[in-house]
C-alpha cells in the first residue's frame, strides 16, 4: 500500500547555508512579529501600543539619567551571558548563573563585612577574587559530576541556584543580620567596599563595572577566536568524540571552561553587591542567570552579539518599569515581551535551516 504522505502536498527539506545578511533579516522579521504580537496584547488590554512602546523607549534612553540606569542593568546581564555562553559553546547547559552570581556575592560580602579595615583597593581586589573563586567553585561541582558520572547538568545547576539562594536568606536572617535594623536585612557596605564610579562618555558616572564589561567582551572574543583553549572547548561542543579522538583531555576542558564560566558569574555577584546594591540581598541575581540563557541563545554565542542583545533586553526591562509607572501595566510585561520575542526567533530558525517545497505528484 503506498504511503499517502508521499504524494503531493508540502514537504520540508534542509537548505544550504544562507548568507549572513539574510539570516539576520529573518531574525529581524521575527522580532518585529513579536513586537506586533505584544502590541496586539497591549491593544487588547486597552492601551495604544505606539504610546506604550514610545514610553518604553523614552523611559530607557530618553535622558542621560535613564541611559545610566539602562547601562547599569546591562552590565550584569552582559557579563553573566558571556559566562554562560562559554559553557553553552561546549554544549554544557549551565543554567546555574543565578546561583553562581549569588555564591560570588556571598564571598565578596564576607570581606566587605569583616575586613572593612583594609584599604579600599586591597579590599575590592580581594572581594573580586573571592567572588570569582566562589562562583567558579560553585560551577565546578556540576562540572565534576558531569564529567565523572554524566550527571544531568541542566537540573543540577538549577538545584544549586536554590541552595545558594536560601544560604543568603539564612545569612540575612541569622549571622549577618543588621542588629540595628527592624527587618531581617544585612547592613550596608562600608564606603571602602563600594565600587568606584567612572565617567561613561556622554552619560555620567557609572560604577567601574562598565569598563569590566567592555574588557570582558573583548577578552572573550580573543579567547574564543585566537587561543588554544577556546579552540578546544569549541571542538568539545561540536563533537565530543572528535575531541577525544584528537587526544584532547575532555574532562579537564569541561572543568576549566565551567570554572571560567561560573567565575564570571561570580564576579557579577561581587559587582552587584558593591555597585548598585551596596548590601547583600536575596535579589542579587534577580533572574539574570535565566535571562542570560535567552540572551546567549539569541546572540548565537558571539561576544559582540551578546553585548548588543543584552543592551536591547536592558532597554526592554527599563522601559517596562517606566511603563509600570506611567500606564500602571505590571512590570512582569517585560517577561512576557521577552518570551514572545524568544518564541518568534526560535521559530524563525526553522526558516533559516529548512525550506518548504511543494512536492510534485509522485509518478508511477
Amino acid at each position, binding site marked *: 500500500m503506498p504511503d499517502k504522505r508521499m504524494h503531493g502536498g508540502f514537504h520540508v527539506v534542509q537548505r544550504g547555508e544562507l548568507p549572513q545578511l539574510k539570516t539576520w533579516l529573518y531574525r529581524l522579521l521575527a522580532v518585529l512579529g513579536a513586537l506586533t504580537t505584544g502590541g496586539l496584547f497591549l491593544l487588547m488590554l486597552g492601551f495604544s501600543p505606539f504610546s506604550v512602546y514610545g514610553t518604553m523607549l523614552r523611559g530607557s534612553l530618553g535622558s542621560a539619567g535613564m541611559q545610566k540606569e539602562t547601562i547599569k542593568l546591562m552590565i550584569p546581564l552582559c557579563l553573566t551571558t558571556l559566562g554562560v555562553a562559554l559553557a553553552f559553546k561546549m554544549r554544557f547547559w549551565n543554567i546555574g548563573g543565578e546561583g553562581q552570581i549569588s555564591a560570588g556575592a556571598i564571598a565578596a560580602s564576607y570581606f566587605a563585612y569583616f575586613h572593612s579595615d583594609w584599604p579600599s583597593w586591597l579590599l575590592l581586589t580581594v572581594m573580586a577574587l573571592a567572588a570569582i573563586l566562589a562562583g567558579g567553585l560553585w560551577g565546578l561541582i556540576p562540572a565534576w559530576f558531569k564529567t565523572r558520572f554524566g550527571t544531568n547538568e541542566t537540573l543540577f545547576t538549577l538545584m544549586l541556584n536554590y541552595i545558594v539562594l536560601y544560604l543568603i536568606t539564612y545569612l540575612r536572617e541569622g549571622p549577618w543580620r543588621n542588629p540595628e535594623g527592624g527587618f531581617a536585612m544585612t547592613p550596608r557596605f562600608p564606603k571602602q567596599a563600594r565600587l568606584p564610579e567612572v565617567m561613561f562618555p556622554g552619560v555620567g558616572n557609572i560604577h567601574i563595572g562598565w569598563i569590566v564589561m567592555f574588557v570582558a567582551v573583548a577578552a572573550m572574543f580573543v579567547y574564543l577566536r585566537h587561543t588554544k583553549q577556546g579552540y578546544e572547548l569549541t571542538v568539545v561542543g561540536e563533537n565530543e568524540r572528535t575531541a577525544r579522538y584528537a587526544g584532547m583531555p575532555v574532562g579537564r576542558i569541561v572543568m576549566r571552561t565551567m570554572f571560567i564560566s561560573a567565575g564570571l558569574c561570580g564576579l557579577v555577584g561581587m559587582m552587584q553587591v558593591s555597585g548598585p546594591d551596596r548590601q547583600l540581598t536575596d535579589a542579587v541575581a534577580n533572574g539574570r542567570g535565566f535571562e542570560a*540563557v535567552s540572551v546567549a541563545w539569541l546572540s548565537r554565542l558571539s561576544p559582540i552579539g551578546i553585548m548588543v542583545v543584552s543592551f536591547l533586553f536592558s532597554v526592554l526591562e527599563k522601559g517596562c518599569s517606566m511603563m509600570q509607572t506611567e500606564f*500602571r501595566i505590571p512590570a*512582569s510585561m517585560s517577561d512576557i515581551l521577552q518570551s514572545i520575542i524568544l*518564541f518568534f526567533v526560535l521559530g524563525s530558525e526553522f526558516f533559516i535551516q529548512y525550506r518548504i517545497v511543494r512536492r510534485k505528484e509522485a509518478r508511477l
Partner: protein
Amino acid sequence: MTFADQLIAFLYAAVLASVPLLYGTLGEILIEKSGNLNLGVEGMMYLGAITGFLASYLFGSPLIALAFSFLAGMAGAAIYAFITVTLKANQNVTGLTLTMFGTGVANFVGEVLKSTAPAGAVFMNEAVKAWLLPLNLGPLTQLPVVGKLLFNHSILTYLAIVTAVTLHLYLNHSSLGLNLRAVGENPAAADAMGVNVSRYKYIHILLGGGICGLGGAYISLVTALGNWQPDIVGGQGWIAMALVIFSSWSPLRAILGALVFGTLNVLHLYVPRDVVNIPGAFYSMLPFVVTALVLIFSSIRMKREHQQPAGCGVNYFREER
C-alpha cells in the same frame, strides 16, 4: 495534641504538599516518553494556576475552573510543541522560554486582577472552595488514623493517583503506549514502523501540559485557598522535573517520589524546635539539596531500563528520500 495526632497531621500535610508535584511529574513523564524534554513545567503550572484561579473567580464553577487549567497547560504545551516538533527548534531554550512566559503571564494577570478587583481583594467562589475541600466519605473518613490519611482529601488528590495508575497502564500495557515509547526511544524506527511521529509527539506533549496545568490549579485553588500571590508556584515545577528522574520515568514510583518531597516541603512546620533547631532557610533548602543528591546517585547507579528516553532533546527530522 498527642504525638500520634501530630504525626497524623504531619503526614496529612505531606500528602497535601505532594499533589502539585505529582501532577507536574506525571505531565513531564508523559512528555519525555514522547522524546521531548520540556523544561517548561514550571511555566505550564503557572498558566494552569492563574487560569484556574481566574475561571473560578469569573464562572464560580469548579469543573470549568479545572477544565480551563487543563486547557491553559495544554496551550502552553502547544506553543512548545509547535516550536520544537514542527519548527524543530532547541528544546532546552524553548522550554526555559515557556517557563519565563508562563511566570510572566501569571504574575501579570494576577496583579491586574488584584488591582482592579473591589478593595484589592479577589476571593474564590464559595462553591468552588467547597467542592475542592477534603471529601467527607462518611464512615470511611471516620476510621481512626487511616480515615484521615486516606479518605479525607481533595478530589484533586484522588484524581492525581488515578492519573498515575492510568498512565502506568497506558505506557506499559497498551499498544498506543508501546508506540509512544518507540517514538521516544527511536523516532526513526517508529516512523519506519508506520507510526506518525509528529502526531504522537503533539498529542502527548499537549496531554502532559494539561496535567501540569492541573497541578497549577491545585496550587492556586487548594494550597493557597484562592488567595493569589505573586510567584505562587515558586520552583515546584523544577522539583517536579527532578522527580521525573527520581522516579526513573515510572508513573507509579512518581507517587512515592512526590510523597517524599511533599514531606520535605512541610517538615519545618512539624519538627519541634526543642528537638532539632536549625534555621528555617535550611528547611527551605532541603528539597533542592535532596534533589541534587538524587541526580547524583541516579547518575552513578545507571541502569539501562531506568534511563531517560533516548530521543529526548533531539528533534526528529525525516531525511529526504
